[in-house]
């Protein structure tokens, strides 16, 4: 009987035989990731269990990206715990301010995660790496602590849902729109405990940036992981970054799926997820008149160079509407530098945007763009829960970078065709 790519990667990381859906397995992890919010608890738990040395100092990755550059004294203390641990353990992959970026943009960019890897991260958006053909899933701090100690984690082998995407994307439509559209169809628990596997002719035309955006938001449908089988685009991306070997897996044609969902992408227009769930999807033509206070472009979902290029294209020669704030956050220093070289940062500054150092920042209501009571923000991020970016009575509208940029110019939720 055929197997899915998810089953094959899990099988390759355990000594257990006859891997099938629903089986509990203990598996070897290639990368165990933590950040400044989740690692301090993991480090305390690691010590509580008598941990002295991590299982492999190249495979434990710590990225202080959430409340950095340190927001306040409490966050500075959290970062100090992470930094001290990284130094003491001699971790290869610890990223200090100046080198740090948003973890899920940083790890693929630096070639730390590769096709065929099994990755756990104490951050729910760890599922991003599925775009590379890896099995990657978010866990809590305790699971991270156990993995730091043993190099292993337990999993239930998930069922897979197959999303077959057909057709050519319309103008201004990106991976962000596809995933919001899909979540709108299946709901925020539509893929609970399952793998979301993306395939079809559209997928082969998607850039890595689009695929990373889509896998990133698999968790917003409750999925355990999102995954794309590697193709030429994937290989072109990883071959210049990889410092070790990797394995390409694909699903067998006769693999078993919990469901197969066909999506005709030609009918999809830019999508906006209205408050307060990522599944409240609407096409841009039916958003109505929604005045806004802020636009936030960045995050592990849409803070890559491709996203900044789209935003700059829309903003070129234009200005942010009066009394509206536009904040642009390149997700990594490499992206920041590239944006500088291409003149994108200048375009942002000319448009009267503020450009920040790489950080998760306001995406999770941390800092660098928090909303007041009653304020509305269009954000290229992944969550719009109550209070996500600030006051419990503020609102977040999730959109792609083109819609975000156009909305900043018009001062209301709008697509770039309205400019």
């Amino acid at each position, binding site marked *: 009987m055929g197997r899915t790519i998810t089953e094959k990667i899990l099988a390759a990381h355990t000594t257990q035989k006859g891997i099938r859906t629903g089986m509990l397995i203990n598996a070897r992890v290639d990368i165990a990731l933590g950040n400044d*919010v989740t690692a301090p608890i993991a480090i305390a738990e690691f010590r509580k269990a008598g941990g002295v040395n991590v299982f492999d100092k190249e495979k434990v990755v710590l990225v202080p990206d959430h409340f950095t550059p340190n927001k306040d004294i409490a*966050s500075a203390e959290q970062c100090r715990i992470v930094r001290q641990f990284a130094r003491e353990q001699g971790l290869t992959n610890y990223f200090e301010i100046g080198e740090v970026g948003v973890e899920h943009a940083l790890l693929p960019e630096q070639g730390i995660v590769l096709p065929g890897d099994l990755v756990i991260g104490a951050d729910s958006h760890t599922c991003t790496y599925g775009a590379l053909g890896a099995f990657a899933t978010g866990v809590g701090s*305790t699971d991270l602590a156990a993995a730091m100690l043993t190099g292993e984690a337990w999993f239930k082998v998930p069922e897979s849902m197959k999303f077959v995407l057909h057709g050519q994307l319309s103008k201004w439509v990106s991976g962000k729109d596809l995933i919001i559209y899909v979540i709108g169809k299946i709901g925020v628990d539509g893929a609970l405990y399952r793998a979301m596997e993306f395939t079809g002719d559209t997928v082969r035309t998607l850039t890595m940036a689009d695929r990373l955006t889509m896998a990133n938001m698999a968790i917003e449908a409750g999925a355990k992981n999102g995954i794309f089988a590697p193709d030429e685009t994937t290989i072109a991306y990883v071959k210049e970054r990889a410092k070790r070997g990797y394995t390409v897996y694909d699903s067998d044609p006769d693999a078993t799926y919990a469901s197969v969902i066909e999506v005709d992408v030609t009918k999809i227009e830019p999508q906006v997820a209205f408050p307060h*769930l990522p599944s409240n999807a609407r096409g841009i033509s039916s958003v109505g008149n929604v005045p806004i206070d802020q636009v936030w472009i960045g995050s592990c979902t849409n803070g890559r160079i491709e996203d900044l290029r789209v935003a700059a294209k829309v903003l070129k020669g234009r200005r942010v509407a009066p009394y509206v704030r536009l904040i642009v956050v390149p997700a990594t220093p490499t992206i920041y530098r590239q944006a500088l070289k291409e003149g994108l940062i200048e375009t942002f500054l000319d448009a009267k945007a503020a450009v920040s150092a790489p950080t998760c920042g306001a995406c999770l209501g941390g800092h660098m763009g928090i909303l007041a009571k009653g304020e509305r923000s269009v954000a290229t991020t992944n969550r719009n829960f*109550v*209070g996500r970016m600030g006051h419990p009575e503020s609102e977040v509208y999730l959109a792609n970078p083109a819609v975000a940029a156009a909305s900043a110019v018009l001062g209301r939720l709008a697509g770039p065709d309205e400019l």
Partner: protein
Amino acid sequence: MKFTGKIWKFGDNVDTDAIIPARYLTTSDPEVLAAHCMEDADPTFPVKVKKGDIIVAGENFGCGSSREHAPIAIKAAGISCVIARSFARIFYRNAFNMGLTIFESRDLWERVAEGDELTVDGDEGLIWIAKGKESLAVEPIPAFMQELILSGGLMSYLAAKRRSGNGR
């Protein structure tokens, strides 16, 4: 394992930002987290919650972030167990790892109101409602999970195993 307590009732998709808003994630001190638990969903919760109270919720409880601060906050607030129609995957895992007891019940939500009292018998697999006059079946907690909860979570459990020479 048996729990009796007053019900706090919540709907579907209670996310981790509702359980503990990210603005408080600059600490992992359980007492501080408990003081803000559920405050955006119900500001009276952190003030009025009593030790032993029980949360009853709808579908997909704990969706969103992987923050273990969520089960830590609920546990430190004094909640004895959470009974939901379904749980988000990472929260489910974190709850056991942290030693917070959780049960899945499809039918309980519609049959109880906030403020009601209920008793869960985790060994027998029964939930008693309506002053003990009615009962619903619930999946009992497996022995291993009970041991894990009683130890105070996965790492304490592993440490105890190591000390007794049974672990790796």
